[in-house]
Structure formats: C-alpha cells, structure tokens
C-alpha cells in the first residue's frame, strides 16, 4: 500500500539525534457501570445491548458522573504522585465521528483532576528513570465500528460501517507524560518500561483490567528528533494502535529510524497521526494535521464541577496498595533473589503469581519452581501469558501441599497440574478422577523390589560394595512396575535396607 520508508541505522540515529518522547495512555476503568450512565461496563456482549438514552446520545438525555470513576481517577493520580485538583470541571471536546454518539467527547480540558506527578521506571539493567506526568484526566470511550465490504475489514475501501455503542461511555483515564528527553538510545526501552510500570501500577490499584490486547490499556506514542546540539524540539508524529508492550518499543524505535532518515536527507517531518503495523513493526501515515484541530472546548454545562475535599483525597490515599516498585524491593529481599533472577520473574510476569502462591501456603522456592519451570512451559506450549493459564495460585499451592504430605510424587503432581489446566477440576478432583495414589504400602513395594533385584542380580552386589548410585536402576524398575505411583525416595530407602539385610 504505502512505499517502504527509508530507515537509518539505529546506531547512527542515536549518534546524530536526540529523541524526544511523549506518551499518552488511555485506561478503561473496570467500574461496574459506565462513566455517565448506569449501563453495565463489560467487554463485548451482543451489540447495542449495553446502551441507554445517555450513552446513545439520544435527544434529551443527560449524563451523571459515576462517583467510583472519580475515586479511581483520584487514586491513580495519587499513585502517580500527582496533585489532585481542588476544583475541576468536565469539558466538551467537539468533533464529529460516527462512533461518538453526541459528536462531542465529555472529557477534561484545562482543569484535569490530577496533574504534576511522576512515575519512576526501572529499566532492564536496574537503572531508574523518572518519567514526569503532566496530567491524568477523566473522559469517556467511544463506540466500536465494524467496516463492511473492504478487503480486510479495514476502514479503507469499506462500503459501509456498522456501529455498536456498548463501549461508548466506558470510563477512561487519559494519562499524559511531560516530554521525556535525554534518554538517547534507550528511548524505546524507556517507553516500553514506562507503559509496563504504569500497567503494573494500575493493576495493583485494581482499577482496570489493563488488557492491552482487549484495548483496556492503549498507548499513543509521540516521537520527535532533535539534531545533537539543537535547542528546539523537532516536529512530532503521534503513533496510535500500539497494542502491546513490545509494540511500544518497536513503534518508537521505528519512528526514530524513519524520521532520522528523512531529516538526514534534508526532508522535514509531517505532523501527523501514524498507525502502528503489528505485522512488520512499521508505522503508516494516517491523517495529516494541516491545521491544529479546533475542538471548541467549553465547560460541560450538563455536569457540575468536582471539588474533592482534602479529607476525601487523604482517605483515598490511605487505600493505596504497596506500590509495585516498593513491593518488588521487598519481595527481592524476602525471596533472596539476585537482580537477574528478579528480572526474569518480572519478564515472565510471575511475581504476582508466585506471591499469591506463597500467600496460599507454599514457600517462595517451591512456588517459584512451579511457576518458572512447569507452568511457564505450559504457558509456552499453550501460547498464552502465564497469568492467563487456567490455574490459580491457590491450586498450585494445593498441589505443592499434596507433594509435601507425600500424597503425590513430583511426577504425579505435574500430571495433576496438567489435569487442572485441561479443565478436569480442582487438584483433588484430578487426583481422584485419575486414580492417582502414591503406593505407600511397603509390602507391595518390597515385592516389586525383590522382583527387580532378582532380574538384575549383579546390582545388589554393587550396592553392597558401596556403589549406592547403582540403586537407581532398581528404583527405575520399581517405578515402572508401579506405574509411577510410588514414592521414589521411599523405594530407594527400602532397596538399601533390603540389600543390606
């Protein structure tokens, strides 16, 4: 469709230019109801079944603010070290688009509820970058359009479109950073780390599902370049549709190499919206902003101002959970992890799962072993994120407890986990259904041991000569004979007893 853009080698880009970033993140709140009406706030559903006069923008309808959304906005603001406005208003942002029922978005303009904050972001090597937050404000989401008749269901070439307003009016918090400068070659990494840290924070606050794949967390990346030594910002582009952490990093990196090539060739950057293309990691030109949009903002007359009392703000501050960064520090100490180990757990998305498994009774080492080895592999084969596996930390702890009590061997325990993942029920149910029962009856084991020793007469001698490792072969035979339902440790003890006696 579009000509392949010329790109500059990344090393050269960072040698010649300083990147300047600005990140805008939209977060859908996981309130029960929408921002301004009592319709249920759920993802999906039959089209246009979660709508009412207000979120359809019917003539005569009026908005009423969801108090819980305001509470979430304030908590997010506080967690981002923001000041909370003593008094602020909603404003109307006027522009026409079919997915927006009123043809204005009820948003906030020059009076955001939270402003002037920061978020400390830890990079892979442990370096901490402080990202300054300009503002966090409340607004509403739009409906969803389905494009019919085009080749790929995309907007271009479509014959007509179909609109579903179930998502219209879902509460959004828009979090805008100040310009992020001085990150040099690490700009793409900083962008990714920022969105990742923000995601963790929002998750800890329990205010959003933060599912980038479902659009409940969306990032727009503003990127511009300054030639080394320049004092003024370059023209920026705004890349939308960046729907995963990896994409954030790729999009920033791509824009840097694309813009650098243009600037180096004597060209100039068009101020425009660009779209991230998941397939090849490139960005494509969207609408050019010839003139600044004229949104004709004005205070929303249908809603009264919000004046959060300082008492309320402090009360909400008291509800903030331990911040993810602090928690990580604590966990690292408690679990005695090296920086590298912690980073691996974080990359795997295993920290919360392990912590929850520990809370359910396992030791950190046991929990870690399960999530990092067995379950991470399962997630890999099933091609899902670790936290999307259909097993709960409590269930993992239960399996660990069964092993510790001797009711399951490690080998059986893994099969139980697979059973749970396959939807066979709770660990106990899987044990029962599959008839797993560790053979604890010594006489049955002794019979099997005798049989195995008789089949391999030279081994008994070796053991008697002190070559205890030779017992392994007998253990193997016994395990085979008992179909794995024997406790290998006990079998080994019995063999040594038997041979020695």
């Amino acid at each position, binding site marked *: 469709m579009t000509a392949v853009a010329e790109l500059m080698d990344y090393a050269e880009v960072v040698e010649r230019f300083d990147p300047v970033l600005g990140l805008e993140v939209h977060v859908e709140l996981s309130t029960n*109801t929408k921002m301004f009406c009592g319709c249920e706030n759920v993802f999906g559903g039959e089209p246009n*079944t*979660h709508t*009412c006069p207000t979120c359809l923008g019917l003539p005569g309808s009026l908005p009423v603010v969801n108090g819980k959304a305001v509470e979430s906005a304030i908590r997010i603001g506080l967690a981002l070290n923001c000041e909370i406005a003593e008094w602020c208003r909603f404003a109307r942002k006027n522009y026409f688009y079919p997915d927006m029922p009123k043809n204005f978005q009820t948003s906030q303009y020059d009076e955001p509820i939270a402003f002037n904050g920061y978020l400390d972001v830890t990079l892979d090597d442990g370096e901490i970058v402080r990202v300054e937050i300009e503002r966090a404000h409340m607004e509403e989401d739009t409906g969803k359009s389905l494009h019919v*008749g085009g080749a790929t269901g995309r907007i271009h070439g479509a014959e007509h479109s179909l609109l579903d307003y179930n998502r219209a009016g879902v509460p959004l918090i828009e979090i805008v950073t100040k310009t992020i400068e001085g990150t040099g070659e690490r700009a793409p990494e900083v962008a990714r780390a920022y969105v990742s840290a923000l995601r963790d924070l929002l998750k800890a606050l329990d205010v959003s599902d933060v599912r980038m794949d479902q659009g409940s967390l969306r990032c727009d990346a503003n990127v511009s370049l300054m030639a080394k030594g320049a004092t003024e910002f370059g023209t920026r582009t705004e890349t939308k549709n960046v729907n995963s952490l990896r994409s954030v990093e790729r999009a920033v990196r791509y824009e840097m190499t694309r813009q650098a090539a243009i600037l180096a060739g004597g060209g100039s950057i068009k101020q425009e919206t660009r779209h991230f293309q998941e397939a090849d990691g490139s960005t494509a030109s969207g609408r050019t902003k010839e003139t600044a949009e004229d949104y004709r903002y004005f205070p929303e007359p249908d809603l*009264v101002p919000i004046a959060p009392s300082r008492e309320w703000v402090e009360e909400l501050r008291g509800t903030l959970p331990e911040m993810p960064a602090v928690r990580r520090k604590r966990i690292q100490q408690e679990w005695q992890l090296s920086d590298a180990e912690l980073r691996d757990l974080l990359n795997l998305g295993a920290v919360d799962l392990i912590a929850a498994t520990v809370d359910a009774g396992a030791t950190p080492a046991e929990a870690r072993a399960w999530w990092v080895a067995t379950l991470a592999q399962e997630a890999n084969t099933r091609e899902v994120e670790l936290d999307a596996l259909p097993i709960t930390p409590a269930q993992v702890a239960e399996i660990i407890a069964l092993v510790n009590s001797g009711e399951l061997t490690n080998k059986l325990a893994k099969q139980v986990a697979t059973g749970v993942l396959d939807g066979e029920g709770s660990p106990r149910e899987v044990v029962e259904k599959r008839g797993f029962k560790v053979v604890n009856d010594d006489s049955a084991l002794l019979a099997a041991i005798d049989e195995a020793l008789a089949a391999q007469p030279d081994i008994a001698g070796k053991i008697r000569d002190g070559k205890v490792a030779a017992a392994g072969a007998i253990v193997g035979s016994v395990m085979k004979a008992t179909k794995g339902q024997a406790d290998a440790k006990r079998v080994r003890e019995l063999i040594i007893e038997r041979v020695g006696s």
Partner: protein
Amino acid sequence: MPTISRDEVAHLAKLARLAVTDEELDVFAGQLDQILDAVAQVGQVADQDIPPTSHAVPLTNVFREDVVKPSLSQQQALSGAPAEEEGRFRVPRILGEEQ
C-alpha cells in the same frame, strides 16, 4: 471587531457539518456579521478580572453510585436508526481513520 468573511463562514460550516449553499454563505456572512457586531459589546469585560460563570447553580460533586441499571433492549436502541444490520447501526462508509 473583525468582520466575518465568506471563507470563514465556509470554514465554520465545514466544522459544523452543514453543506451550506453558496447563496446561504452570503446570507450567513451578512447576518453573522450583523449579530457579531451587536454582541461585540460583551468584549468590554474581556480584560476585567471577573470570574466566569459556567453554571447558574453553584452545585459541586454530584455523583451517581456505581450500580448497574437496566439498559435499553437492542430493539429499543435501534428503534430510531435510519438503517441497521446485525444488531448494529448501519452508516455510510467512514472516511479517514479510527480515533
């Protein structure tokens, strides 16, 4: 106060999604000019330090509880639709891009 030109009227019409005719452009240019002239006297307070009033009644913090209320049925939601398809509002092709 600036007088409003025909081009400016055309720009406003575009912003407001009104496919005005050439004839209307002239009429509106004249009338808007006349009205703006008449209302321009509010400008006399522009540089005065007076707090603006956006709401007649000084209420604050009017919130709703986060409790689900029944929505309209799909049929009710679509009852006024000029066109519908598969439970959705059918609209002409959208130029441009998703926001």
